């Protein structure tokens, strides 16, 4: 039997992060919804739990915003699947959001990692 993480150890995605993860996944190349879900789970070392309903709504939202485009095609094992591709606009957005996210993550890390260092605020600036 293959190993799978206990569902209790998984984390629900933070609001707004799903979009970013999808874009990041698609930056590696076009793929379909199921592939995106698998990739996100795998790359986060099975930490993230992807709610599939939300995933498809997010895909639809990104498509509406013209960050990704979709096209029906055949998967590697020859099944019909809807393939998503990152657009130039989506790539710009990804870059922007990624740097934003990194700044946020760093700040969070700093705050949470060194609780007993009062000078941290100064360092940040």
């Amino acid at each position, binding site marked *: 039997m*293959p190993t799978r993480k206990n569902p209790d150890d998984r984390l629900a995605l933070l609001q707004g992060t799903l979009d970013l993860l999808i874009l990041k996944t698609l930056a590696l190349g076009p793929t379909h919804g199921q592939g995106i879900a*698998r990739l996100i789970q795998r790359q986060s070392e099975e930490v993230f739990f992807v709610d599939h309903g939300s995933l498809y*709504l997010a895909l639809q939202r990104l498509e509406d915003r013209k960050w990704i485009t979709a096209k029906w095609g055949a998967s590697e094992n020859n*099944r*019909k*699947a809807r393939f998503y591709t990152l657009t130039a606009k989506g790539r710009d957005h990804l870059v922007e959001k990624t740097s934003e996210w990194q700044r946020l993550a760093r700040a969070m890390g700093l705050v949470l990692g060194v609780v007993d260092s009062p000078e941290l605020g100064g360092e940040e600036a």
Partner: protein
Amino acid sequence: MFWRRRSSKDFAEEIRSHLDLEADELRREGFSADEARRRARVEFGSVQSAEERFHLRNRALWVESFLRDVKFSVRQLFKNPGFALTAILVLALGIGAGVAIFAFVDAALIKPLPYADPARLVRITESEADRHLVNISYLDYLDWKRLNTVLSSMDVFSGGNFLLNTPSGTEPVPAVHVSAGFFRTLGVTPALGRDFYPSEQVPGGPHIVMLSYGAWERRFGLRQDVIGTSVRLDGVSYSVIGVLPKSFQFALANQADFWTILQPVSDCEKHRDCHNLYAVGRLKDGVSVRQALANMESIAQQLERQYPVTNHGRGASVVPLSEAIVGEIRPILLILLAGAGLLLLIACVNVSSLLVVHTEHRKREIAVRGALGASRARIAAQFVTEGLVLVIAGGLGGLLFAAGAMQVLTLLISNQATARMPYLLGANLSTHELEFAGILVLLAAVLFTATPLLHLLSSDIREALADGGRAAAGTLWRRMGRRLVVIELATTVVLLSAAGLLGKSLYRLLHVDLGFQVDHLATLVVRLPDVAFPTDAQQVAFAHSLLDRVENLPGVRAVAITTMLPATCDCNTDWLRIVGRPYNGDHITALERHVSSGFFSTIHATLLAGRYFTDAEDASKPKIVLINRAFARLYFPGEDAVGKILGDPTLSPSSLKQIVGVVDDFKDGALDEQQMPSEYIPFNQNPASDFNLVVRTAQDERSILPLLAATVHELNKDVGVEHGSTMSEVINDVPTANLHRTTAYLVGGFAALALILSAIGLYGAIAYSVSRRTREIGVRMALGAHRSSVHRMVLADASRLAAIGIAGGLVCSLMAARLLRGLLFGVRAWDLSTMMAVVTVLGIAALLASYVPAHRAASVNPVDALRTE
């Protein structure tokens, strides 16, 4: 974006593909096929919920909220049916009146005439030295047609009558005689059969006739084999060669049943000074009306040099055919349209102020909805929807109202008027009218959505909640509502004074000093067939036996004959010259009436000098004539006209006649024109085949009409009779009276509606203002103000509004009256008594409208008033 959305089916397919892919992968990881499928499904979560979420997201939310708004609006309107009904009714009235009048404007002025390329058609007439237009003579026509370089074709026509002989008797029928190319010039092709050939337009040509579509329908039951059948007209057999199309109408001639080819056989067509024809022409390409006129004028001058006697002072007139046909009615229609427009304005103002009050009352509701999280846009959308629902309901109601009003109006227009203006019958609710209604609805929609929206923008939700809507915006809108009322009142003044002026004109017209006694006079047109009565002597003999018989009928006081009834038109004129006076080519133009000896005593005219003629003075005696006072005053000032001799412009011996008497003026010409000089020729010396019987009765003149017709037929069943009516009816039905009446009635109707609407508007504004000031009034009364002073305060407020409105309206109506000037008769545009009447009527209406709210204000209980919050 809405239309590019994915279908739910596509989405479901994507989910299915997801599950398959996931199952494949799980199988690769070692699960059995069934287990893989199960796990894939479990992993995915609820497919149904995903699809549902997709569906919800995909749905066009705005459509739904719009529908919800509509439902809510309708509910709102039902909740307040008084407001909704009033608003819709008022709007329907305004839009309906506008559309109905527009339909007639469209039929008369916008729709092209039913001819090929009608813009190139012109009417051509001759003109006299004083620019009076006159018919064209046959010989002049032939010269004009030959010499002109501006027309591709020119044709003539003349109206007339036939006596149609049918097995059941003789029936006078309207007919038109046309030159051969008439229909080709108009660009009209027969619906059946053929057109006239030029070779047929000769004396002694074949007796052929074309039927109007109406005659084909009524008299021949639309039979296809009508071509070649013969009809007996004036005792002569005519062969039917064609039927005119259903759409054909020709307003310049009577709505004739029979169209015959003009064969120049009568005496008139041999004389250059006998003007009996009307002409139409088609301009060559690139020729303007002005160029055509210049060309015709030069031909007229050439003819004048050639024929100095008959063509002295003759000019030409060329006007577009459409101008000739609708020129007379255009100003009237435009004034009616303006009247309908003003009514619509009042209706819109009225509904606007209703909306203002309505919105004001709902301030709290808006505040609550806002507080519960409705966005401004959402609330605004709600109001826009309500406005739209109102306007659309009003627009539909308006179309219904217009359809009804047009039916009534078409019935109101007399048969005589429709014969002269057949195009008015073409008024219907077609695309033009629907477009027009659409524009009105659109404008109203903008107005009625903007009104509450502006209101909404100017108010603050929290403020409204806090003080129950008694904020500064309330004052702003109270002022706005008052301004609207002032506009309404001013517009009403304009309509009322226009109606007053037109009504007074109509009254003046119908009460012109006629100079004869109208009551107890019955009239009947008698037409003798030329075949049976070819000579003057036979016509005179018949007239005499008829007069004898009628005289002996019970209740007949007197009976006479005239060739033209009084008070109808300035037509049938004669050219005269006074013997022994120097002559420079300017002849006297006088109305020419042939009357029997008893005519003057029958209508109760007054003899001023000389004597009447007697029955004995017939063709065997020297020729004599009577003239009227206008003639004597103009041409024999300060001398005795009796004994003077008149003749035609060449003083040909046969034309000489001696004046034996002068009659006081009576209206024997057009009702709305100055009295022209007239001559009265003894019927016995110069009879006619068509004449009017005039009978003075002791009893009701209407009752004798059938007896008159029967008496004529007893004498000779082949003689035609028509238009039996009383003299009062004749006067009421003359075209000018008809036009004046229709205009006055319609504008009067608009004014009455405007009066009601503006009174309601004033009432609304004052009542609203009182309701807003209840607390203030309470305070005043608590501080000792007397009830009567509160009463006075409210009335003073209303009077101020009314005074401003009426004063503004008077200024506007002064300007509007200048536009009306052309339609007024016997009334100046600035008629003081009319204005006074308008001010009085509107003042009383305003007082009545403000009395109720004033009374309510005065009976406020201070304690209750102070508690109202």
